[in-house]
């Protein structure tokens, strides 16, 4: 029988509506899962990340907020703040250019040696903090290799070529922070929808325009991730400003502490993190304005690398040059590891070499212990960061409504604070059992190190994971659920594998940073288990530069192994099945539809 439906009318269809409220019942199951998962995450973040950071806020208010007056217009703190922000913005731009450019070169152009270059490009991330700054001094400082070489060639005073002051800081920042962009953009490129590029070119956009108008905007999550990490870390950067005597806010914080004015130091730290958080919110808002999820139907075909001899040759030459510059500090460290202390005075290159530095290290029976401590502790922290970071990224991405921004701020908070501040907050929070730390006293146990690394570096995993997620079409998750996979399984079998690149990138950064972490380590590390960075610091402090650099070289060697391992882990399949070079930045498959 013809079941006649009411002919459509323009008025509202029916009165007898049971309107579903926004309550629990009205949520779709995946929404409910998001909120259910958010609870424990919020708890973990609160206890282990956020509350410890509140110590700073409280102590800044100890003298009734008086400390904030230092930020009155024209004051030292105010100029320092402006300088910090300026330097951070410049660092974002410079690191962004270098990192993204390199990512493009190494993932979109195919030329011999690309694989090796990919790993080398990551090495600057492995620079040990103090030694790293020193290596820049030996390279570009007033008496460094490059200025002296230039002097010997041109006869112009070496100091005219040297990087100093703000320029020096920016140099160090660019060289050490571009990996935040490099890794994020590489992962983003791997997940981008190739057909969009084709569409743009078909409509008449040449490569440059296509990049500017389509790929870059599509890479927004990756760029935002890189920009955020860079901005925050350069706001909190201390070694470089100290080295080049630039009076940033972090310098003010240290000065305040040295003079015993703890409320002032806390107030300055708080302002610093507020600026970082403001930047974070700005970036979130910016990213939220545009959708970057591929809306294509089906899975687009894989994009091939750029062909043609000329572009490939240019890319190869360009990359080699860029990488030479980037690897220079690393090489310098190795050079110094073999230098006889005190002999390198006025020469361009060290005049005398020795293996004594390594002999010293290895003749000590427990010399490998710092290496073991650092690797295991940062490994452990990395695992925890992956768990918490990835889940939080997922929750933030799938959260509908307001709370997402708060979660984001919560997890990024430690990244926005200077390392020492974080370290001290952790010690304060976990020194005695309180309800806020769930009765856990970590101070004095080996647990404190991975905890500190976790707190400091979970933002890295989180940001990168979030960037990858932003490219994934939720309909594949729906497909998995439709086929009977519950939310957790969907996450494990579908979403996670699609995020692999971002997660690996973030985890790598977290591990490598944990490996070289000094500022927080030194205030928390348990006696007898000095991490590598502390050992390096001690050698350097004792003016055993040679063996400090030898340790630094060992550290980089260890990290190099990890990088190679990660590279292998990521593409084991390709290795077997394809002749195409595979690596960190090569898409095994396209991310989705």
């Amino acid at each position: 029988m013809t079941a006649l439906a009411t002919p459509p009318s323009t008025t509202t269809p029916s009165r007898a509506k049971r309107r579903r409220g926004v309550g629990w019942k009205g949520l779709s199951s995946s929404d409910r899962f998001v909120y259910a998962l958010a609870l424990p995450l919020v708890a973990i973040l609160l206890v282990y990340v956020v509350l410890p950071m509140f110590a700073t806020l409280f102590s800044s208010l100890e003298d009734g907020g008086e400390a904030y007056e230092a930020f009155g217009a024209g004051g030292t703190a105010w100029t320092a703040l402006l300088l910090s922000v300026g330097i951070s913005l410049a660092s974002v731009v410079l690191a962004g250019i270098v990192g993204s450019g390199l990512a493009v070169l190494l993932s979109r152009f195919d030329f011999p040696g690309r694989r090796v270059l990919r790993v080398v490009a990551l090495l600057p991330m492995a620079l040990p903090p103090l030694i790293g700054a020193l290596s820049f001094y030996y390279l570009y400082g007033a008496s460094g290799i490059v200025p002296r070489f230039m002097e010997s060639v041109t006869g112009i005073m070496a100091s005219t070529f040297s990087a100093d002051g703000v320029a020096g800081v920016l140099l160090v920042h660019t060289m050490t922070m571009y990996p935040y962009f490099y890794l994020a953009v590489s992962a983003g490129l791997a997940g981008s929808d190739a057909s969009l590029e084709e569409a743009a070119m078909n409509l008449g956009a040449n490569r440059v325009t296509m990049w500017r108008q389509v790929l870059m905007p599509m890479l927004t999550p990756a760029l935002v991730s890189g920009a955020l990490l860079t901005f925050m870390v350069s706001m909190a950067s201390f070694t470089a400003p100290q080295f080049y005597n630039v009076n940033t806010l972090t310098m003010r914080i240290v000065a305040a502490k040295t003079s015993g004015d703890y409320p002032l130091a806390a107030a300055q730290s708080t302002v610093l993190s507020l600026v970082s958080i403001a930047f974070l919110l700005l970036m979130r808002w910016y990213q939220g304005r545009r959708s970057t999820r591929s809306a294509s139907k089906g899975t687009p075909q894989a994009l091939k690398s750029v062909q043609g001899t000329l572009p490939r040759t240019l890319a190869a030459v360009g990359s080699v040059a860029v990488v030479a510059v980037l690897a220079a500090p690393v090489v310098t460290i190795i050079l110094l590891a073999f230098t006889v202390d005190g002999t390198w005075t006025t020469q361009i290159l060290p005049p005398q070499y020795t293996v004594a530095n390594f002999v010293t290290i290895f003749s000590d029976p427990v010399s490998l212990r710092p290496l073991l401590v650092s690797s295991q502790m940062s490994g452990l922290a990395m695992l925890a960061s992956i768990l918490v970071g990835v889940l939080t990224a997922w929750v933030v991405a799938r959260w509908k409504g307001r709370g997402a921004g708060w979660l984001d701020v919560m997890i990024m908070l430690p990244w926005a604070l200077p390392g020492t501040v974080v370290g001290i907050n952790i010690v304060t929070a976990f020194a005695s059992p309180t309800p806020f730390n769930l009765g856990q006293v970590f101070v004095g146990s080996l647990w404190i190190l991975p905890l500190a690394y976790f707190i400091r570096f979970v933002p890295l995993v989180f940001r990168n994971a979030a960037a990858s997620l932003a490219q994934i079409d939720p309909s594949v998750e729906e497909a998995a659920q439709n086929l009977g996979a519950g939310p957790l399984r969907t996450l494990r079998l579908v979403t996670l594998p699609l995020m692999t690149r971002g997660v690996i990138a973030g985890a790598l950064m977290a591990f490598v940073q944990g490996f070289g972490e000094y500022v927080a380590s030194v205030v928390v590390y348990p006696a007898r288990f000095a991490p590598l960075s502390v050992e390096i610091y001690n050698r350097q402090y004792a003016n055993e530069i040679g063996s400090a650099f030898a340790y630094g070289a060992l550290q980089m060697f260890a990290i190099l192994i990890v990088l190679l391992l990660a590279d292998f882990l990521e593409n084991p399949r390709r290795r077997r099945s394809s002749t195409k070079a595979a690596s960190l930045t090569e898409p095994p498959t396209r991310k989705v539809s």
Partner: protein
Amino acid sequence: MTSVVLDNVTKQYADAAPSVAGIDLHIKDGEFFTLLGPSGCGKSTTLRMVAGFVVPTSGTLRFGERDVTTVPPYKRDTGMVFQNYALFPHMDVATNVAFGLRMRKTSKSERGQRVAEALDVVGLTGYGERRIDQLSGGQQQRVALARALVINPSVLLLDEPLSNLDAKLREETRAHIRSIQQASATTSLYVTHDQAEAMAMSDRIAVMSAGHLHQVGTPREVYRRPATSFVARFIGRSNVLAGTLLGRDERTHTVRLSNGELLTVPNTENSPTAHIGVEEDIAVSIRPEDLRVVSTGSTDAGTLRGRVSAVEYTGASCTVTLNYGETQLLATVPDGPDIPAVDELVSVQPAVDRLWSVAP
């Protein structure tokens, strides 16, 4: 293996007009039911509510007696073919297809066998190890289909599953889908924009427009006795002529067309125009194939005269377009020597028993 009931279901995205506006559907156990309607009318949204990805703004959804309105998708045992395929790009073809079976803990050997069968059904034997991005569009769509079929779900949901296949493969595949569906008596909800497909496969069809249901019925009912002029126009080609109801008796309506021409139109019980009163607006629908080109010069009563504006060749026959007053008339002419030429004046005669009156 369960009926699907939508009870006054509405879905409204943000501040827009509702995408689905209070529809009632009762899909019987084992029925092959099709949602048909123009692009953007809310078909996919309805399907996604049945699958559980979209929670209705209001209304209830039942599988049999079970209220599933807020049951999560993975507990509904529905198999869905997504309009955009939603294949897992990190898995090869076979792993994609095997996914649902893995979730159901099917043994490995059985899994292999069923996957092979399913790939065979969609004509992709030998493609098991291909990466998804190495497939053509149609091949991807077929993988999506195999993935949904292989799990033998209790409700099968298909969102334009054949849109990217060629006519031949589409016919083969729809025959396959139909026979699998009949053998397993799986309740199926099929979304398509292709009326021929809907006609050929469905037990019943629901015609939607702008979130509303216009008609639910068997293919023949929908084609022959459209409830509204929208349905008449949307299902196949149709000529819908506006007019006024002059009078009615039990078996006929008399209608005056806007140009004064009088038509006698059959009337039935439950006519969708029963509510239309004398001297009110009404419309008359007639299919192109029921308009016979009688002669190039006839002016008989009951014939409609117009000038040919286009002739379109469609293989088996030609479709002739006539300018008839303000509107256009379509008439199907078997391919042959008698095809009128453009600009010729022709008369067409409706098959009287095929005239049908609809709400304007």
